[in-house]
């Protein structure tokens, strides 16, 4: 019986996938989209897929987006699957975001911070009016360039450190756990939580962060700093024995500064939440920083009552690949399970009927 069903399904599946391929291509009178067009012109989608796929590779992310017809969770899934085919060469030296080649850097707490407010290529202050000139296709004018470039910029958190009014970056927790090697386990320290959040679903983190702003575990956040730009990556190949620079990746970092009334052991001071994401992913980095801070409730002696303060709830549900796998598996054949449920219901009804007759 089972084999008959599989064989019957096989042709249907092949034909379904053939139709999918045709649908993916769309009207063949329209030019086919190339993956370099996706990576150049749909860069934010590429950034999001790299982030949630947990793999930095613009070309692969672009291919995944094309293959998934722009379904970004499906595309992230494709990247996750692909990465399992590759060997792991090692870990990088932790990147130095303080040495970032800045494209954008803003602070909502200090107007006149050293280095200044650099808006960069932002959607902030646009009017969110549809631009029909884009539909017509027009080359944009060259972006203006200043006489001289910006200098290196200190992180805002380093500027505030002096008076002890803001907590530091935190102590070294030793060798961090790695979710790609070992499944999530609790208690999860901050390093492990940040890894999970970094590849967590942007929409989920946005909703969780938003919930803290609306009163479910409020943390009174301010954006201490957002910075985006290129950061060099270093590794130490064993055959060389010294660190080498292997190239740049684009990162977005968010330092959230939060009010804190103090506890029995700590004086009142500003605490912090941290967000770091692949690519230009500002909403993601901000939401991550909000959630990183709310998940520190227990550590800071706050009453943990809201969903965004519940480490297990957040980390068990932040991964959209796992989420989509478990939700979408419901549509796959459950014929046998359902048959047995049917039998059970019939039996229960029959039993109930007999009991009535006997009464």
């Amino acid at each position, binding site marked *: 019986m089972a084999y008959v069903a599989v064989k019957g399904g096989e042709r249907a599946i092949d034909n379904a996938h053939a139709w999918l391929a045709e649908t993916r291509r769309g009207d063949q009178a329209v030019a086919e989209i190339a993956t370099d067009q996706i990576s150049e012109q749909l860069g934010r989608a590429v950034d999001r897929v790299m982030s949630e796929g947990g793999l930095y590779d613009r070309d692969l992310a672009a291919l995944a987006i094309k293959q998934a017809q722009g379904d970004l969770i499906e595309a992230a899934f494709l990247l996750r699957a692909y990465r399992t085919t590759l060997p792991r060469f090692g870990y990088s030296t*932790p990147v130095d975001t303080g040495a970032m080649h800045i494209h954008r850097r803003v602070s909502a707490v200090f107007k006149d911070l050293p280095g200044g407010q650099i808006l960069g290529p932002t959607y902030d202050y646009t009017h969110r009016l549809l631009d029909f000139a884009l539909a017509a296709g027009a080359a944009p004018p060259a972006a203006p360039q200043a006489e001289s470039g910006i200098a290196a910029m200190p992180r805002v958190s380093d500027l505030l450190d002096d008076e002890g009014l803001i907590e530091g970056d935190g102590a070294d927790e030793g060798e961090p756990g790695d979710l790609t090697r070992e499944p999530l386990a609790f208690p999860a320290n901050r390093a492990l939580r940040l890894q999970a959040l970094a590849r967590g679903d942007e929409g989920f983190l946005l909703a969780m962060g938003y919930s803290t702003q609306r009163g479910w575990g409020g943390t009174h956040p301010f954006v201490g700093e957002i910075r985006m730009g290129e950061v060099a990556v270093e590794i130490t*190949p064993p055959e060389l024995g010294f660190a080498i*620079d*292997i190239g740049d990746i684009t990162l977005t970092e968010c330092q959230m500064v939060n009010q804190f009334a103090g506890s029995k052991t700590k004086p009142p001071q500003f605490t912090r939440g941290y967000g770091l994401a692949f690519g230009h992913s500002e909403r993601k980095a901000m939401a991550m920083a909000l959630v990183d801070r709310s998940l520190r409730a227990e550590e800071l002696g706050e009453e943990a009552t809201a969903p965004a303060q519940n480490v297990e709830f957040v980390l068990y549900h932040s991964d959209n690949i796992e989420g989509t796998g478990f939700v979408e598996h419901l549509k796959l054949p459950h014929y046998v399970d359902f048959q047995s449920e049917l039998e059970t219901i019939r039996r229960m009804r029959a039993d109930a009927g007999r009991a009535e007759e006997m009464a």
Partner: protein
Amino acid sequence: MTPASDDPNAERKAWMRVLARASAGDMRALLADCPALPPHIRLRGPEVGLVMARGRIGGGGGAFNLGEIAVTRCTVRSEAGQVGHATIARRDDEAAELAARIDAALQDPARHDAMAARVITPLAAAQEKRRQDAARRAAATQVQFFTMATMRS
């Protein structure tokens, strides 16, 4: 980031940093003006794999695993005897192998100066120009607060 001057590997690290960012096409074009690279054998790769990129909690605290980067690595030995290595943060077998061969050639005293002058120097200049262009674009988006100054006058 700037290598300390007492680092014995400082010079090699500096050219490897440049090669890691160079396209295969640019390296090939510049090599056309140089004496041919010596024949080589591949000791490893070129092969694609993953490096887990790490960040620091709060930017400067303990390490955490951010996400993986697809990289290509290659190790070669040139006929002249030098072992060259490259790991580059992208999938590109040709670029990784060329970078490893150039790394080997740069360690060969007979080839070093020509390679440095004709390959590394122009590549470094182009990369620096790209960075400076971005830095000038960024500077053009720096907010110039003028309200306070206007009110005071």
